[in-house]
């Protein structure tokens, strides 16, 4: 017995070591990223989005044509080794036009989504946080605006501000904040009653600190997911507006406008519609599945 006892030596308690975190802690964002990486579909979507964004920047300069130069000798040429996607009815190179259009479409999608979010967070946040008269008015206004179809509302605004890229962005921002403000208000109302808010308040945090340090970080996941859902919506709406002839004005071009021009020649030169339609659809698809994946990754309810 003596022998075994000697083999064990009492080394005392090392409190410092006990408190040490031996593994790196996994924060909210790195955890979300880890989960997103496991979602193959979402990663495919992300890769396609990145490729399209890079091509929107550099695609046009890969060929010797630009999106507005006409070549009346080569009109309506099917895709070949010189014109990779063929040419349109005015002899413009479709490869160059597709990527120039991507630039406009993606910009409209991103900028208008960010503007909608900013407006929505401001209005919805103030309405939800402070409540009272402002909240009441905002909610009644959103209820009324909700009963005009989104696109009809956009069309009405565009008749006042004109056609073109910037008016489209303005019109989307002015209509899209409604849904965003509602979402943010709901989130704020929910979070406001939680214990960590009470704790922060009882320690004397100011309203600004409460909003900036506690409310916004807690809503970030929901907001980012909504943002990725708003981008395809805006691209879709832009395509619709360009299709009915009040969207992006020539010589500028967008995917919607290309599809519109292609649809006119559909019966004779189907590739002119099929090519832009392919890019709109795959971009939509990628944004959707990436948004879905992001939602799954950021939703704390799914954490285990």
């Amino acid at each position, binding site marked *: 017995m003596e022998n075994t006892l000697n083999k064990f030596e009492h080394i005392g308690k090392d409190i410092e070591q006990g408190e040490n975190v031996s593994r790196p802690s996994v924060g909210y964002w790195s955890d979300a990223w880890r989960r997103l990486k496991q979602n193959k579909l979402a990663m495919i979507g992300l890769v396609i989005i990145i490729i399209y964004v890079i091509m929107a920047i550099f695609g046009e300069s890969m060929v010797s044509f630009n999106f507005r130069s006409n070549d009346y000798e080569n009109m309506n040429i099917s895709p070949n080794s010189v014109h990779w996607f063929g040419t349109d009815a005015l002899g413009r190179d479709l490869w160059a036009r597709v990527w120039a259009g991507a630039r406009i479409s993606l910009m409209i999608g991103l900028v208008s989504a960010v503007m909608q979010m900013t407006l929505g967070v401001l209005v919805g946040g103030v309405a939800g946080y402070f409540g009272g008269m402002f909240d009441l008015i905002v909610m009644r206004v959103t209820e009324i605006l909700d009963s005009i179809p*989104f696109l009809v509302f956009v069309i009405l605004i565009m008749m006042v501000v004109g056609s073109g890229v910037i008016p489209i962005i303005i019109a989307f921002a002015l209509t899209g904040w409604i849904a965003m403000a509602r979402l943010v208000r709901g989130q704020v109302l929910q979070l406001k009653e939680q214990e960590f808010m009470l704790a922060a308040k009882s320690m004397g945090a100011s309203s600004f600190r409460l909003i900036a340090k506690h409310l916004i970080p807690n809503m970030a996941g929901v907001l980012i997911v909504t943002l990725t859902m708003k981008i395809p919506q805006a691209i879709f709406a832009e395509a619709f507006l360009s299709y009915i002839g009040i969207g992006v004005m020539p010589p500028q071009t967008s995917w919607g406008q290309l599809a519109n021009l292609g649809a006119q020649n559909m019966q004779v030169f189907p590739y002119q519609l099929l090519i832009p*339609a392919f890019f709109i659809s795959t971009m939509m698809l990628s944004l959707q599945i990436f948004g879905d994946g992001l939602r799954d990754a950021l939703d704390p309810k799914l954490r285990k």
Partner: protein
Amino acid sequence: MSRYVIQRLIMAVVTILAVATLIFFLIRLLPGDPFSDPKVPEDIQLRQKAYYGLDKPMYEQYYIYIKNIVKGNLGYSLRYKGRTVNSIITDSFPYSADLGIRALIFSTIAGIFMGIIAALKKGKGWDNITMIIAILGVSVPSFVVGSLLQYFLAVKFKLFPVAQYTSTLHTILPTFALGIGTLATLARLMRTSMLDVVSTDYIKSAKAKGLKEYQLTWKHQIRNAILPVVTVVGMNVATLLTGTFVIENIFAIPGLGKYYVLGIQNLDYPMISGLTLVFAVFLVSTQLIVDLLYGFIDPRIRVSGKRGD
């Protein structure tokens, strides 16, 4: 329940008046004057202005405008000389309504059905097929679907008539093109909703009581899962409504959407404001119907008179 109905009715009327007000001021914000055409003699311009009350102060104009709307008078089209917006609406609305209702019925029934099948066969072939259709439906713009259907099924294979809207066979392609987006949304939603319901306690207890599989699915799962879908059906009426703009254009259907697009292209202000108002009234009434319908489907609302979230 009756208090709830009255409350909702008042809210609907207020909403429509507010929309009319918004249109009134948006139109006044538009650059230019619809009657300052140099070809038109000045006294006629003045008479036109007097007819619309444009020579009167703003508050009086507004009063007349609202009075006309209450009477149901939407004014004259600027593009189609001598035709009132009302007559254009009565001519074209039946086409749009027919197409819209067909698309709504098709997309609702098919969407819910596909969602149910996908949820019951989760992870199997049917689920995958349904979800691929659903994702394609939300990713491909309706004008692309419409053009492709028209090209392949009508022009190439001659299975359907290319355009116009005169027989049941004519309605199939436009209905499908218009409804596919909504179908996709509803199928996805129904699937999620069904899968949410499966893990609830009342399904477990129904199972524990020894209910048969089909009873469980029909009486408990589907009935509960369909509730959130009904709300979305109401919201999708707006999507279908604006969807008709392009579908009517592709298939040459003489409906409201076509006039709306033409109105925009021709800057026909009375037409745009009149049609927008019609859209708003239509949308508000469908939302009202859906809300009231919700009360009948969900007993919790019937009791409390409020919509519980």
